[in-house]
């Protein structure tokens, strides 16, 4: 004991002397500059895909050619007090990532990164239009004139002959020579972050984010029920934000505070496109159905304002502290969101005359006749979330949680004497904007019981309340009870929860739809329909999962979870949404760093909704009812292994097979409208097999080579894309390729460490 005590004492003294000695940097004995390249990897990819489907490269950029696949450069100096790193992944590609990090541990750090994320929607879409400028799609006048004339002739001789077959016949020669377009965008997200004093009592941070998002995505541009043109919506967005935050940490608590400004800009305000079927603008009461047997009128071109610029400012403060036995924390934030873009005129159709509240007509293309020239929208949000917990004796703990969110839309209500439907006809129906607002309160109490070491039971009871303005239900309350438990012993962990909720509401005001009309019309939604986000409901949510370390190297997991939302008090609308999931996983550690794993997930979801078809007035005939039950089965199976095959040889294999199998079972009682209902089996039947094999060989301590093979097989059958062509009844489609593919990617890589 005495020898140990002396040894301990001497060791302690020695440790004190060592730790209190001047640092190497201060003593100047060595700058200690270290640079490590670990690694730099150059790769060559060879890609072979059997189709042009955009799904293959949906969020990535796999293509033939060399690339800097990986760069990790780390350095330190001043005895390790200063550290930096330079990181690059897939440099030069559309899915590249770059980062630079510099820090003095415990003092400050600076980081800058650029993350590129592509998003491809479809390739080789057929575009009848020419893109003549940002947001401008045109068809040459001769084509428009020719089509307009042909349609007018047909309309004169046989109105009913202006139908799909006729229009398709007119369009086919032009479609045969149309150009193609790929629909894709890319996000370039940059972030710069400066942190000061993280390890001290005061810390500060400054974060700047900027994102450029550019490209195109599919957009439905409609000039009437029978005249929809799918176009590439031009995307040229800039999102910039900056946040300054501070933090103070004390012995018994702390405070965080800060402010954030965010600005979104859309560089292309408006989309203008030619009407394929008209060179000149006209109007008539049925022009919104054109071209068809009722009308061939309408506008020569359409105009759609695209998403407006907006700004948001956020102020926040978070606090936490210990007060006796109580531990409390809370967050307060105030956000103001503004949008004040200039408003476009009612239409570009010069043939249309608007009618004001006094009955006088005006030029609907003239912005000066708008009730106001800009949107002038503003919303204030106040939110609070907090918790307070106190131990009750040695085994119990009580936590209270509260959350409050108040979305206060203070925008003025703007009255419009009417509007132009589909750029085709003036509708003398006065409309008024509706500044929806709501507040939400969540309260809960959680009593936890630590039954034994590693075993806990919890009982939670809570209330969620929602208050709304301008919607069908003004007040809804949901009470819930939750039982959760967890036990860990040795390598075994069992945990789960069971939660029951019941939402009740005050009366449902179906006439809430009147709020957007200056002169309320007859209610035209089913009186007995309940919008599910407001409706009464019961729900059950559950989870049970077991994780078991069968041995030092083998882990097994098994779990079941699910949620059942029951809206059965709604006669129409969503009635039921239920999901049941199973998962299982086996993990085997092999050797020092090897691993083999296998997992499987299965999710079975059923959704049931009811409705009733009406004509010009709300139907009261139950024979007009219809219902649909959706069944979606999802399965994912995966396996993988990471093994050191032999000295210097490393093998990584992963495989995933996922499948979704959906069906829609539709029923309508015979004798009504609709008479019967026919379901379909391809409610998103999708299968993906994805596998990756990587074999690496270390030539020596510094160099390595690798060979990779990626294989994917994707098959998609969806009812909404079944039978799509470039022109369908009432609709001109891009029909871009986004479906099946089989693809191989071979990769050869060379890595160097230094």
């Amino acid at each position: 004991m005495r020898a140990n005590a002396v040894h301990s004492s001497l060791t302690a003294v020695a440790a004190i002397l060592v730790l209190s000695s001047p640092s190497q940097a201060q003593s100047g004995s060595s700058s200690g500059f270290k640079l490590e390249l670990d690694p730099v990897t150059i790769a060559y990819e060879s890609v072979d895909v059997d189709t042009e489907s955009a799904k293959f490269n949906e969020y990535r950029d796999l293509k033939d050619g060399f690339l800097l696949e990986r760069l990790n450069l780390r350095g330190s100096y001043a005895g390790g007090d200063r550290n930096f790193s330079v990181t690059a992944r897939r440099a030069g590609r559309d899915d590249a990532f770059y980062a630079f990090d510099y820090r003095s541990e415990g003092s400050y750090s600076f980081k800058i990164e650029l993350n590129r994320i592509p998003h491809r929607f479809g390739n080789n879409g057929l575009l009848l239009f020419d893109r003549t400028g940002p947001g401008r799609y045109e068809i040459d006048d001769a084509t428009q004139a020719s089509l307009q004339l042909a349609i007018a002739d047909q309309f004169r001789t046989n109105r009913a002959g202006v139908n799909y077959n006729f229009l398709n016949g007119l369009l086919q020669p032009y479609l045969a020579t149309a150009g193609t377009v790929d629909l894709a965008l890319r996000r370039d997200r940059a972030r710069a972050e400066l942190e000061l004093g993280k390890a001290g009592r005061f810390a500060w941070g400054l974060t700047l984010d900027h994102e450029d998002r550019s490209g195109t995505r599919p957009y439905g541009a409609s000039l009437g029920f029978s005249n929809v043109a799918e176009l590439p919506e031009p995307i040229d967005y800039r999102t910039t934000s900056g946040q300054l935050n501070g933090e103070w940490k004390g012995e018994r608590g702390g405070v965080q505070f800060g402010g954030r400004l965010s600005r979104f800009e859309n560089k292309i305000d408006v989309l203008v496109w030619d009407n394929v079927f008209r060179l000149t603008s006209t109007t008539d009461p049925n022009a919104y159905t054109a071209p068809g047997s009722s009308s061939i009128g309408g506008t020569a071109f359409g105009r759609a304002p695209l998403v407006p610029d907006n700004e948001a400012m956020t102020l926040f403060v978070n606090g936490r502290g210990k007060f006796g036995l109580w531990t409390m924390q809370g967050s307060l934030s105030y956000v103001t969101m503004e949008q004040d873009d200039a408003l476009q005129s009612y239409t570009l159709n010069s043939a249309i005359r608007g009618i004001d509240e006094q009955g006088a007509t005006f030029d609907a293309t003239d912005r000066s006749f708008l009730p106001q020239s800009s949107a002038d929208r503003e919303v204030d949000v106040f939110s609070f979330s907090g918790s307070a917990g106190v131990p009750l004796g040695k085994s119990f703990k009580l936590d209270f949680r509260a959350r409050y969110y108040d979305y206060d839309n203070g925008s003025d209500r703007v009255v419009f004497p009417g509007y132009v439907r589909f750029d085709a006809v003036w509708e003398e129906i006065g409309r008024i904007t509706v500044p929806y607002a709501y507040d939400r309160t969540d309260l809960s109490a959680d009593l936890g019981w630590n039954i034994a070491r590693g075993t806990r039971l919890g009982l939670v009871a809570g209330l969620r309340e929602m208050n709304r303005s301008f919607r069908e239900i003004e007040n809804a309350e949901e009470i819930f009870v939750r039982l959760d438990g967890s036990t860990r012993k040795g390598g075994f962990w069992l945990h789960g929860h069971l939660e029951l909720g019941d939402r009740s509401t005050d009366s449902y005001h179906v006439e809430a739809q009147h709020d957007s009309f200056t002169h309320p019309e007859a209610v035209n939604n089913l009186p007995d329909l309940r919008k599910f986000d407001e409706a009464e409901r019961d729900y059950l949510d559950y989870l049970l999962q077991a994780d078991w370390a069968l041995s030092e190297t083998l882990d097994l997991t098994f779990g079941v979870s699910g949620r059942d939302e029951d809206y059965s008090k709604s006669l129409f609308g969503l009635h039921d949404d239920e999901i049941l999931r199973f998962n299982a996983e086996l993990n085997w550690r092999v050797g020092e760093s090897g691993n083999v794993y296998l997992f499987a997930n299965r999710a079975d979801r059923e959704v049931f909704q009811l409705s009733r078809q009406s004509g010009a007035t709300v139907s009261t005939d139950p024979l007009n009812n219809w219902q649909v039950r959706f069944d979606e089965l999802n399965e994912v199976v995966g396996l993988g292994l990471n093994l050191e095959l032999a000295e210097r040889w490393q093998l990584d294999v992963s495989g995933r097979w996922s499948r979704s199998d959906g069906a829609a079972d539709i029923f309508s009682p015979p004798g009504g409208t609709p008479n019967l209902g026919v379901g379909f089996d391809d409610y998103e039947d999708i299968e993906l097999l994805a596998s990756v094999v990587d074999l690496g060989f270390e030539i020596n301590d510094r160099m390595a080579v690798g060979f990779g093979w990626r294989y994917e097989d994707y098959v998609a059958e969806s009812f909404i894309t079944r039978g799509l062509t470039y022109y369908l009844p009432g609709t001109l489609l891009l029909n871009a390729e986004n479906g099946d593919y089989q693809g191989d990617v071979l990769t050869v890589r060379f890595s160097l460490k230094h």
Partner: protein
Amino acid sequence: MTRSGAAVAALVAGVALAWTPTLLADEPTYVGVETCVTCHDDKEASLEGTPHGQAGFAKLSARNCEECHGPGSAHVDDPDNADLRPTLARLTPDERTAVCRNCHSGGARFLWDGSAHASQQISCADCHSVHSPKSESSQLQRANETEQCLSCHKDVRADLWKTSHHPVREGRMSCVDCHNPHGGQGAKMIRAASVNDQCYECHAEKRGPFLWEHAPVRESCVNCHAPHGSNHLKLQKTSVPYLCQECHANTRHPGSLYDNTTLADAARASNRIFNRACVDCHAAIHGSNDPSAPYLGH
């Protein structure tokens, strides 16, 4: 002071002096890193290249190993006694977390107390590893943030592999882009105060506010979307047109039945079910500034 009082005082002092070395000897003391690595050099080696093994850590914590593991003299004195080993596994989850929070209590970890993970007795060591991290950053037990979360939240894995998904499985984003596992302001540990505020971080064009609003959009994006993954376009929970028809059964076309007989390859093909159905006309579904778009058309 009386003579008897002095005698008592002397007696007490003497007893105290006699017992003090014993009392002091019962409390373990710090032995220093050099002692620790005498036996545990593998642990020292494991820290190399990690933040805990760099000079900055030594600057912040004079006690190195014992900063986290506590004073080790008792263990050094009797290394074969398992009960005296200062291993963190012997602590309760709250105690383990308290060790880490001695240094790591700010930033993203500020709202830990009362968070879902804290109340479920999850500790830092359930996700992070100081001595054997597998990830490139954040010292996680798994290769990356997503795999770490999926190690417990296995029900989400199936959603990530659905056809419509955020680019999580491609590695372009991860769970922590939306969730703060250390505790966030919103429900489900969302970083922002609400689901919508979180979504606006990347989808700022949906923030509005707009001239013409769509109420369920303003209240919650997850009224219509399933952010972890979906079999349907654009992360929709249910496919259009049926998604819209859960709320809209108005006269004429909104309440009409669209079924197999109205698909693109059928005789009664209707543009209200094929391609993007309702959204092909009601393109401004999230809100519009168009004076002529009270129905959220263009």
